[in-house]
């Protein structure tokens, strides 16, 4: 049994060779436990930026920042831009100052969501045990897939990375280990286009020199508290007594003690059932008037409705979310007698709530969500009183069919049209 292989052609890589004897590639991966490890963390490299560079090759060789609008922050910086110090979540003006020559592209979320869905589809080809963490990263559990795929999880993952590149034109970094905690750390070790393996046996030594903040859930506050108690490096936690840590920090103490040793028993939970489905948008300019707000509310309601319909879900709690220009959040909810998935009903409830909040306050964000989700089978029942209800519902479903065939913009409700367009 070998302990390594070539990531490009998947053939065995004999020890002591620096290049693959079959294809000549230097991208070899070796590890003592490589045939056994099955928990992976997959992270797309500079996801939004990579997609934009893929779609516009002229951007390929220049620093690229994906960030939105006038008041936005950096969503993603490509690796080139990162060398200038540009980071995600940094205010745009600062990013521009650090890297004035960078190309700036506004995010195109629907495109990224589509690519992410493709990546996920390829993941599901490997295992149903996929736990998405965000749009561009996920945990995967490939235990027991060796016979199915005719190769160990490590090779399946290398082949997956190759397919993502070939089919989707983006790159991923993979961390392979025995649990989620170590897999996540591993995926950060070799980026971009990386493949890092961290075995249970490496954990103690590898973690020892790292700061405690590497452990997820240890933020600034916890870090200060741990530092005050003499825990700076993970090594300090490794030396501590489990009971003593539990006495100090309760169950969190036990968690720290275990993670410091690379012990993590959390399971991979495939796609959790959504609790609510919502959509929101931040305006370029704050808005106080009902008319433009209701227009946005309509298009958001349509979006939420489309997502509910796609998942065959309906919900009976409608929540309106507003953020005023002083960043105060207002949420207003309303319960419906029966769950709905229709844009018309979502909008009607949301509009009712919105109308009451029009008091001169200028809003920077509006959103609408549907919660208390259930299957669509009991949704939107026929109504005794509202004779138009079933007709409106039928009309909406007919529009959905048209859009399915002729594209999203084939039919637009008058409310959603810009007045300037007409």
């Amino acid at each position, binding site marked *: 049994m070998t302990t390594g292989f070539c990531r490009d052609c998947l053939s065995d890589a004999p020890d002591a060779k620096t290049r693959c004897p079959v294809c000549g590639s230097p991208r070899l991966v070796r590890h003592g436990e490589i045939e056994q490890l099955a928990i992976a963390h997959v992270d797309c490299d500079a996801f939004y930026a990579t997609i934009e560079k893929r779609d516009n090759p002229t951007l390929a060789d220049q620093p690229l920042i994906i960030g939105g609008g006038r008041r936005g922050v950096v969503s993603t910086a490509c690796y080139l831009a990162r060398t200038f110090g540009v980071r995600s979540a940094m205010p745009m003006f600062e990013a521009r100052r650090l890297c004035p020559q960078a190309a700036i592209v506004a995010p195109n979320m629907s495109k990224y969501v589509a690519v992410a869905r493709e990546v996920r589809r390829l993941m599901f080809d490997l295992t149903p045990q996929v736990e998405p963490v965000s749009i561009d990263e996920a945990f995967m559990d490939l235990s027991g897939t060796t016979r199915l795929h005719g190769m160990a999880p490590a090779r399946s993952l290398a082949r997956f990375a190759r397919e993502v590149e070939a089919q989707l034109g983006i790159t991923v970094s993979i961390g392979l280990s025995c649990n989620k905690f170590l897999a996540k750390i591993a995926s950060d070790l070799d980026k971009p286009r990386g493949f890092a393996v961290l075995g249970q046996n490496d954990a103690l030594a590898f973690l020892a020199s790292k700061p405690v903040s590497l452990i997820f859930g240890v933020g600034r506050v916890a870090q200060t508290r741990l530092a005050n108690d003499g825990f700076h490096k993970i090594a300090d936690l490794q030396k501590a007594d489990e009971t003593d840590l539990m006495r100090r920090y309760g169950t969190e103490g036990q968690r720290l003690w275990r993670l410091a040793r690379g012990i993590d028993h959390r399971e991979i939970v495939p796609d959790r059932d959504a609790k609510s489905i919502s959509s929101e948008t931040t305006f370029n300019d704050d808005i106080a008037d009902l008319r433009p707000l209701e227009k946005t509310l309509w298009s958001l309601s349509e979006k939420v409705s489309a997502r509910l319909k796609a998942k065959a879900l309906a919900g009976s709690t409608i929540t309106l979310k507003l953020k005023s220009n002083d960043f105060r959040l207002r949420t207003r909810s*309303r*319960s419906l*007698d*029966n769950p709905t998935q229709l844009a018309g009903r979502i909008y009607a409830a949301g509009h009712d709530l919105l109308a009451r909040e029009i008091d001169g306050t200028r809003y920077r964000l509006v959103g609408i969500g549907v919660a208390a989700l*259930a*299957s669509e089978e*009991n949704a939107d029942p*026929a109504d*005794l009183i509202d004779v138009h209800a079933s007709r409106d519902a039928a009309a909406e479903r007919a529009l959905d069919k048209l859009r399915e065939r002729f594209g999203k913009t084939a039919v637009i409700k008058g409310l959603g049209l810009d007045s300037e367009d007409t």
Partner: protein
Amino acid sequence: MKVTVERAQLLKSLGHVHRVVERRNTIPILANVLIRAEKSKLGLKATDLDLEVNETIPAEVAPGGSTTVPAHMIYEIVRKLPDGAQVVLEASGDRAVLTIRAGRSRFTLQTLPESDFPDLNAGDMTHKFTLPASDLKRMIDKTQFAISTEETRYYLNGIYLHTATTGKTETLRAVATDGHRLAQYEIGLPSGAKGMPGVIIPRKTVGEVQRLIEDNDAEIGIELSQAKIRFTIGDVVLTSKLIDGTFPDYARVIPLGNDKELKVDKSEFEHAVDRVSTVSSERGRAVKLSLTGGKLTLSVTNPDSGSATEEIEVEYDSDPLDIGFNSRYLLDIASQIEGETALLKLSDPGSPTLIQDKEAKGALYVLMPMRV
């Protein structure tokens, strides 16, 4: 102001009025009850600005006066005082407190001035009539469950009380619906109600009136106008705003032409629906009624847990029919049927069903089917 009153009497009255006071209030005075003492009478009043309850009880008063104190707190105090105690309420002119004394207990509560207490300006009432308490109670019992809670259709958030004609009889009719079921109950038109406007009585008011009716043999006085309604129930006077909206034309949804008649033993039916609906998980899961010959099969299928069926012997001669209903709605209606037999008039799986009560002639229910 100094009032001496029997604890039991005070408790009963506070029990009536304090319920109107909302637990959470943004306007401080609305959390208070108004206490007004004059000429051997103690008046208590509470309001939420939509609804106002007023009760007057005999008391020893010397001197008279008025003030307001937190309603729930004074109710709790009086409730915890020993039975049979004499309660003394005393407010001095210069300090904004009310002292409550009974036996060796002594409480002082902060007051707010009486002048701040809002008055639900009732205006002139245009119509006035009386109803036997039992009639009004039945009218509420049989329709209340169908009141909608959906705020978007605020005009359905109450009982629509109006005059109607059934056959050649003029009636006073109550209707409530939430769009999925409709309940109607009517009685002969009392004199004085002729020509009254149709009014929508809000859900909270309906609930309070129902609770205030303690004596079924009493006569309840009702006065109303376009905007307000007032109930006089013994010593209690409840005045309420009405819902400012138009109740939809419900008559056209009552399917009087349905020709498939099903007669079923009410309690057998109720228990069977209750039993089979146990396996349904999500709120409002449908129960399927399959009718062939003299047999009704009730069934529920829940993909997550299992299924249930039950057969009942019924009277049914029409063509076989499969139809689904929300089990909760069926149970709500079944529990209102007074007679031994429920009569269901069906049409098809997509159209409303009419349910009648052989004993309670004035009652009628309409239920929208569900997809099964």
